[in-house]
């Protein structure tokens, strides 16, 4: 073997300190190295399937809650946005209210601060709408004929602008209720207003919880990669001895971190899917009871990709932390 050294190399006289670059270009070398690290990581993970599964599960659980909170948040926002188009209150005039009082009320409502628009509904329009919406319009028509007059009052749908809060809506409602000729003031969909507050709460609570859980995911990846480093310390020392670069020694562990992170992301996707499947029926029932037939949104391909990317990022971050914390793995054996 050594016999053909001089013949092939012809390097006698060169300094061992001369830098010998890999043949085939840097990019090819870089890809070859990544291929080696990736196959090394797959082998390592496949040889420890149970412990790897537990790591995936831990990272997955840590990713699931932020994922679910994000889906909840985006759904609450969707409901809010639907509601914002018809936000406000309805003012019902007394049946005996004069035309003058009704006209004055319309002018007054249009002058109120925060009011975006006022939609007036006359008793005739209200009756017409009622008949159109009712499945038993013939019966209603007969009933109206028996009564002899329209029993429905004039009303105003008052739409407030986006910046109006529930408190302003409530104050306006009280003020209008006290006006002459006003029979009743109904605040529309107050439960959605509460939902908006709830959404804000979700937002703040969710952000804090998510940050903590994502840190937990990084720490899980960190601990796992740290163990991997410890279990391969002998190998790392040999690699340092034979001239592996620090990047070559770090690379397999970054792949471990990626594998743990992406695996955790896949686990999180499965957990979220199961969870959504479990809550879909009761949630739909709840929303329908509020006449808000909304499908659960957010579980889209983009969301799935985002979960995988976040998992990958957290896994790599954990691995980098472990490598940084461990350091000094490039010492040759003594």
């Amino acid at each position, binding site marked *: *073997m*050594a*016999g*053909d*050294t*001089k013949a092939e*190399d012809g*390097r*006698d006289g*060169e*300094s*061992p*300190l001369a*830098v*010998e670059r*890999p*043949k*085939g270009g840097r990019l*090819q*070398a870089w890809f*070859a*190295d990544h291929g*080696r690290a990736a196959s090394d990581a797959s082998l390592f993970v496949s040889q420890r399937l149970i412990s790897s599964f537990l790591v995936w599960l831990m990272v997955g659980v840590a990713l699931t809650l932020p994922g679910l909170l994000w889906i909840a948040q985006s759904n609450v926002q969707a409901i809010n946005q639907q509601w914002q188009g018809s936000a406000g209150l309805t003012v019902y005039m007394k049946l005996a209210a004069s035309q003058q009082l009704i006209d004055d009320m319309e002018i007054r409502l249009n002058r109120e601060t925060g009011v975006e628009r006022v939609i007036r509904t006359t008793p005739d329009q209200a009756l017409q709408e009622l008949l159109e919406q009712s499945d038993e319009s013939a019966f209603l028509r007969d009933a109206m004929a028996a009564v002899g007059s329209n029993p429905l009052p004039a009303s105003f749908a008052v739409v407030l602008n986006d910046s109006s809060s529930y408190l302003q809506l409530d104050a306006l409602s009280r003020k209008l209720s006290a006006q002459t000729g006003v029979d009743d003031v109904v605040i529309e969909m107050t439960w959605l207003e509460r939902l908006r507050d709830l959404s804000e709460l979700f937002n703040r609570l969710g952000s804090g919880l998510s940050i903590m859980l994502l840190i937990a995911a990084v720490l899980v990846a960190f601990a796992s990669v740290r163990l991997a480093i410890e279990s391969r310390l*002998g*190998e790392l*020392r*040999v*690699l*340092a*001895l*034979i*001239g*592996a*670069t*620090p990047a*070559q020694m770090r690379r397999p562990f970054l792949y471990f971190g990626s594998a743990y992170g992406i695996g955790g992301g896949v686990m999180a996707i499965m957990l979220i899917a199961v969870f959504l499947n479990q809550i879909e029926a009761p949630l739909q029932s709840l929303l329908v009871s509020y006449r808000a037939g909304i499908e659960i949104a957010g579980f889209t391909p983009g969301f799935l990709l985002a979960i995988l990317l976040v998992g990958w990022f957290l896994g790599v971050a954990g691995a980098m932390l472990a490598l940084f914390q461990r350091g000094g793995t*490039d*010492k*040759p*054996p*003594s």
Partner: protein
Amino acid sequence: MARLQLQHVTRRFDNGQEGLSDVSLSIESGSMVFLTGHSGAGKSTLLKMLIGAETPTTGRVLVDGSDVSQLGPKQMPWYRRQVGIVLQDHNLLENRTVYDNVALPLRITHLSAKDIARRVRGALSTVDLSDKGGLFPKHLSTGEQQRVGIARAVVNRPRIILADEPTGNLDPYLSRQVMSLFHQFCDLGSTVLVASHDIDLIKDQGCRILHLSQGALVQDTAASSEVAT
């Protein structure tokens, strides 16, 4: 020009002890030199300095005139790829086959699979282990494991071979076989430095002997022309 040079090298440890004390020596290119002395004499410290794992407290360690301790983290791996290192406890990777262990230094240099196979076969053939490539180190005898370690050290065709007690675990017959291998590499142009405390074995080799004692170079015996076989 001398391939390896130590100029007034002192290595003082944190506890105040001196691993090496004002050592100066020079080893010519293509020669085989033995480094001997009792345990703790400073043999391993000197070898570690030559592979850049230790830095001198004072003095300089030169390889072809360049100071090894001045190599940065990016240059050091490239330097180590050109130094073959053989250790007493082999440091073979137990979860890899003999072939993979020997191929390791080549894989990090991005040689093609074909070139790697050719060189590994050659190295295994040199140490007489051609038929053991598919085995794991635990299936080999101590002597065979040591030869795998030598094959891994030389597969990259190093210009310098450093061996730290390479025959420490071997019987006299295997020890002579290993020495014979080092002579072969030396004859092919490699500079070989072997640290060993086996005086009897060393004397038979007819090579220059550097004797360390308590970190100091106390004797430098020139090579004799006779080599025991």
